[in-house]
């Protein structure tokens, strides 16, 4: 046999193993489809190398971007929890608790932990903190916002009256602090009269003896 016509294995075009996604479906890899017969079908489970590479790269890019977006969202959300979010979450909680129908509903929400100061109310909290509950009696939806800022020393809170935000509106006198029946905690009791005009009522909380400022409370009564 003439040496010139001896059969030889063609030189492989690649120099290493294929480990890319493109080889998953047993196609020849990027750039090699041009070597196929011009009219060779690309179906039958085989995926063109360029196409597989495009999709593989595409998913990598978009998934990376989505991961970065999720991370940024997580960080932003964690950051916002330290400020506005807590306040709005508490308000939302109180709002949901105070949406009652006709009849009395006792809604309990622990609002605050602060340093205890040796009076009957402040001693009631765990770890020496101040623990309050809110009890709402209302025939209509009502939202209560309590911003408690106990002054140093003794703190037995009182509320004089809540002024109406509507000019000339009748003040609301149905808010008072008391002790719970078991004497364990303070209670802010809100009783909304049926004839009270809808609107927002707000006022200061004072220390009963020294009259020092101890926070604010507001009640929004819906029609």
């Amino acid at each position, binding site marked *: 046999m003439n040496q010139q016509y001896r059969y030889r294995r063609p030189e492989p075009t690649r120099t290493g193993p294929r480990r890319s996604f493109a080889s998953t479906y047993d196609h020849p890899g990027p750039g090699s489809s*041009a070597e196929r017969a011009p009219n060779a079908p690309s*179906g039958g489970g085989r995926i063109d190398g360029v*196409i597989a590479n*495009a*999709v593989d790269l*595409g998913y990598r890019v978009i998934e990376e*971007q989505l991961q970065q977006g999720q991370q940024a969202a997580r960080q932003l959300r964690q950051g916002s929890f330290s400020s506005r979010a807590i306040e709005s979450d508490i308000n939302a909680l109180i709002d949901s608790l105070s949406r009652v129908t006709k009849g009395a509903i006792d809604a309990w929400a622990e609002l605050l932990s602060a340093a205890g100061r040796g009076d009957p109310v402040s001693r009631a909290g765990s770890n020496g903190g101040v623990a309050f509950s809110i009890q709402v009696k209302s025939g209509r939806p009502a939202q209560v916002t309590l911003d408690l800022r106990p002054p140093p020393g003794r703190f037995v809170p009182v509320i004089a009256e809540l002024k109406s935000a509507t000019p000339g509106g009748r003040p609301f006198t149905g808010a008072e602090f008391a002790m719970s029946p078991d004497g364990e905690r303070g209670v802010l009791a809100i009783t909304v009269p049926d004839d009270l005009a809808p609107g927002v009522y707000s006022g200061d909380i004072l220390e009963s003896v020294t009259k020092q400022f101890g926070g604010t409370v507001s009640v929004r009564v819906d029609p």
Partner: protein
Amino acid sequence: MSESIRDLDLGASEPRSRAPPGSYRCDPLATLAGGEERTADATAPDRTTSDATTGPRTPSLVAEMLREYGAAIRTEMKHYLPSGAPKAHLYDMVGDYPARGGKMMRPSICIATARAFGASLEDAIGSAVAIELMHNAILVHDDIQDGSTIRRGAPTLHELHGVPLAINAGDALFLLSLRPLLDNSDRIGPALCERVLRETEQMAWESAEGQAMELGWRRDNCVDLTESDYLLMALKKTAWLGVIYPTRVGALIGMRNDRNLDRFNRFGFFLGVAFQIQDDLLNLVADPRYGKELDGDLFEGKRTLMLIHALKTASASERVHLTELLARPRDRRDAEDVAWMREVLQKCGSIEYARRFAHGLAGAALYECGGIVEALPASRDKTFLQSLATWVFERV
């Protein structure tokens, strides 16, 4: 060309295919070469434009609905285009690009997504108008940054009026786009209105970042870019405004919540980048319907997927010359230089490579779209969204 649009094969005759990406074939350039113009069939919205010998193709519904929604958007947009003074120096220019037409693809995608998820046309039309105005604003600035001379078949705004006035008109268009978003509050409520505005802000940032990447590559004559670099740039520059934002906003309006919006990023990314690559391919084809300057991207030295591929695969001497040509300012690349660049792209198989790359991305878009719409009831809007991945290659 070994394939043509007549060979378009979605891998199955079902309207929605969950087949693996890349399981269909079509040829964008063959469509143009044939100059084929499809006729819409209003009586059979879900019918595909196929005949017995060619197999299924993109439903004519896409063209139909683009016309239908486009007309509604144009009517609504007119209410927002000011007509007072300063007329010649501002408001005539502001209304110029919107009056030139355009496919209305972006706002129509928003409306179709919203409607597919249960909203009414009226709920989505404001956001759609905003998207079209934003798109036009960006086009005005893009044309200046790219030094483009033709837009939608006529001279670009800065060619007609000079760069300073065109920049100002672009700024005004962007401001104008905020108005329908603010007016949304009455229709969709303040909370959803604010959510859409937040989406708008994110989209604007993404677009600015994408544009910065592309302009920076040109200024610094970057020639070692990877395909991943290109995909990231196209994601930000094109896909966000083109598809991701319209679908996310449409879904927000339709669903009235923001659950699981990431899936729209995937669909929008694949469709948007396929659209961009096809747009770059069309730039190499002389067709008056395309409305842009032939070879404009090569004159501009734009880093297209074709150019990135050619820079990787060209011979050493070709690469050196390509790099030298790309380093020149636009006005120092003449027709002869551009003809040589085209020749290199052709020789390296870069055009064919980009065409197949785009098909792969469109296949993935089709796949992702299936996941989004599979639980939705049958509707024209659902079919429209499913058909976009193939329509990308038939449009001009």
